[in-house]
């Protein structure tokens, strides 16, 4: 029998609701996570039969849960089944977001203009003279909003709108939304058994979303690292068996780091799930906040889904990551650094670029005190050895003198995007207005007419 058979498209006449065939790999069925920029990073959407782990190591924010709220809302809105596993699942479901224009007091037009105002706030003056050779280039884009491919699939959600109770009740009635409670009396294995039972009893024509917003929170009891890994592995195997389901889990902040799980913990999570991302918010590190004022945290991609191919679809087709132009052609640029920000109405993932002021146009002769604190802060985040040595102190200003000795000996570990750490020492100055040291600098003034004014 010849092994060369003509590939006929798989006879999948009807796809489950809310999903589509991945345009980049015809054997993969993808569905939206609710956030268009996250869909782009994942390569179009989250493929069915894949599990996504969202780590949010910051204790003071709940970005992981926010991503899960989008996930649940998108599932309910597209008519897919949603299994929600939480210690108070009904309360979590009621806190989910919904599409704008559903409540009579907020008409759709006003929300659209407010949204536009949000974005105008950071736009530069349109009257800038653009050199003629650049006029044809499209505007600099840092993020992907819902594009035409995804329009019918990824609905626009508004963070200011809560999901109407009627929708939740209707979903529970029709068994579209299944709430599974977690408490300390039942262990992780019991939860998995419940999920398995529900999966085996649901039809394969309907896509199923499994959502665990706070895996590892105190209500799960005293979890051991091996139990958490076992759960991730078992969920992944369940998804292989029931390929019309997908899962999205958010780990509780305290279990996201090496201090809880042991060395290499984050990597282990990446290996045992199909896709893993880490959203490290800036709130713990004030120097990063001043450095990137328009973002709320960095996004680190640990693993991307590739259920039917070797190369993840995102590597070639993600506009945000920016590898597509380089793949396979002359030269190859590194990928873009990614960050996220939570605006009033939505959460978006963007490419991260240095600000105008803090960039290479400003020349310093000595490193600023902020840069040293910044380096020390970053070093703390990335090297577990120093965390244990200095007792886990973050880059606080009071400890600058001590940290200086360590900074020179450290080698930067691979857990932080390399491009960002490489650019940190090159950074001339974050230049906050309140820097006390007088410094020599050459600054580019745009209002002065100069040689380059055509």
């Amino acid at each position, binding site marked *: 029998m010849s092994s060369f058979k003509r590939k006929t498209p798989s006879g999948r006449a009807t796809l489950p609701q809310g999903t589509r065939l991945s345009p980049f790999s015809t054997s993969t069925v993808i569905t939206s996570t609710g956030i268009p920029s996250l869909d782009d990073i994942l390569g179009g959407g989250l493929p069915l039969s894949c599990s996504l782990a969202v780590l949010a190591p910051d204790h003071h924010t709940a970005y992981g849960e926010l991503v899960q709220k989008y996930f649940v809302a998108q599932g309910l809105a597209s008519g897919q089944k949603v299994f929600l596993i939480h210690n108070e699942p009904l309360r979590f479901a009621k806190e989910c977001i919904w599409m704008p224009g559903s409540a009579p007091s907020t008409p759709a037009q006003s929300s659209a203009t407010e949204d536009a105002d949000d974005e105008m706030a950071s736009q530069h003056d349109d009257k800038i003279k653009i050199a003629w050779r650049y006029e044809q280039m499209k505007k600099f884009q840092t993020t992907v909003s819902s594009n035409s491919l995804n329009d019918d699939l990824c609905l626009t959600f508004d963070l200011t709108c809560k999901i109407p109770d009627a929708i939740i009740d209707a979903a529970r009635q029709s068994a579209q939304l299944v709430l599974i409670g977690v408490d300390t009396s039942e262990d992780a294995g019991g939860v998995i058994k419940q999920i398995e039972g529900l999966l085996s009893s649901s039809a394969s024509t309907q896509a199923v979303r499994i959502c665990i917003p706070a895996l590892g929170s105190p209500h799960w009891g005293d979890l051991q690292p091996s139990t958490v890994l*076992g759960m991730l592995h078992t969920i992944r195997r369940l998804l292989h068996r029931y390929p019309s389901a997908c899962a999205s889990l958010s780990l509780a902040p305290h279990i996201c780091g090496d201090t809880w799980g042991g060395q290499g913990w984050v990597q282990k999570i990446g290996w045992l799930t199909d896709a893993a991302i880490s959203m490290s918010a800036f709130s713990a590190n004030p120097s990063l906040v001043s450095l990137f004022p328009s973002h709320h945290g960095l996004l680190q991609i640990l693993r991307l889904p590739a259920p039917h191919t070797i190369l993840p679809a995102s590597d070639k087709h993600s506009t945000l990551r920016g590898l597509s132009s380089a793949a396979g052609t002359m030269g190859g640029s590194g990928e873009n650094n990614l960050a996220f920000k939570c605006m009033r109405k939505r959460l978006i993932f963007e490419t991260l670029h240095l600000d105008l002021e803090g960039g290479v146009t400003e020349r310093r002769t000595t490193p600023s005190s902020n840069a040293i604190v910044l380096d020390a802060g970053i070093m703390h985040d990335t090297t577990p050895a120093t965390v244990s040595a200095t007792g886990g102190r973050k880059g606080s200003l009071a400890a600058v003198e001590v940290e200086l000795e360590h900074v020179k000996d450290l080698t930067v570990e691979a857990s932080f995007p390399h491009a960002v750490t490489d650019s940190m020492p090159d950074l001339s100055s974050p230049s906050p207005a309140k820097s006390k040291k007088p410094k020599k600098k050459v600054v580019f003034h745009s209002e002065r007419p100069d040689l380059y004014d055509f």
Partner: protein
Amino acid sequence: MQFPAPELVSPRRLLLVTDQLQAPADFLLHRFLHLHLKQTKTKCIILAVSDGLERWKSVASKANVNVAQNDSFQFIDVFDHHPPLADREGGNTNKSSLRTIYDLLSVKLSDSQVDDQTPLVILDDIASLEWLGFSLLDLSRFARALRSLCVKMNAALVVRHHIVTPPEPDALLQHLLQLCTYHIEVRPLASGRSGAVSGEICVHLGPSVKDTQEHLISRTSALQYRLTEASAVFFEKGTSTGVL
């Protein structure tokens, strides 16, 4: 550039493939499988821990290797023979399930013990077994048992191990290094991900093997690769722009 060199995967050898999360080595395992099925047409047994059968099948079909109807391809899911999370009660169940896998494998290998047959056994991922609760002692014994079984049955063995603490070898890796003939190391580029180069490959000789220069690729002259849909393209350092 061709990797692996034709004689690298040969019987009675243990090839240890290590990788990191930023540069996974599954493409290499798939490549070994496809080359083996195409060239020698003998049995190929996959002991899988994390990936499912679907992925092996779809990647093989993209590389024009028919795996679905191929009798020589056999897939054993390690956790099919292992009780689920809730029922485990400690080390004994782990040991017995490893024993079950070993017995199953020896049955399958002896089935095909016709002369000149050189089966290929791929253990995808012994590191996950350790993370999921199997003890280090059990796993190192299992690896040794697998090695001796493959030597007896004239089979080639490929074991994949994930490195999560890059500069320092963990205990299981040290055990495996002592057993292996060649250590194929897949590493990410030190400067991060790039579109043109996905990572690099080095081949080291196992510590207990007689000194030879054959097949070795040192770290300084590592072979770089770029992933494609179903396989990878290999090239020497610095020649990536010349690759079509």
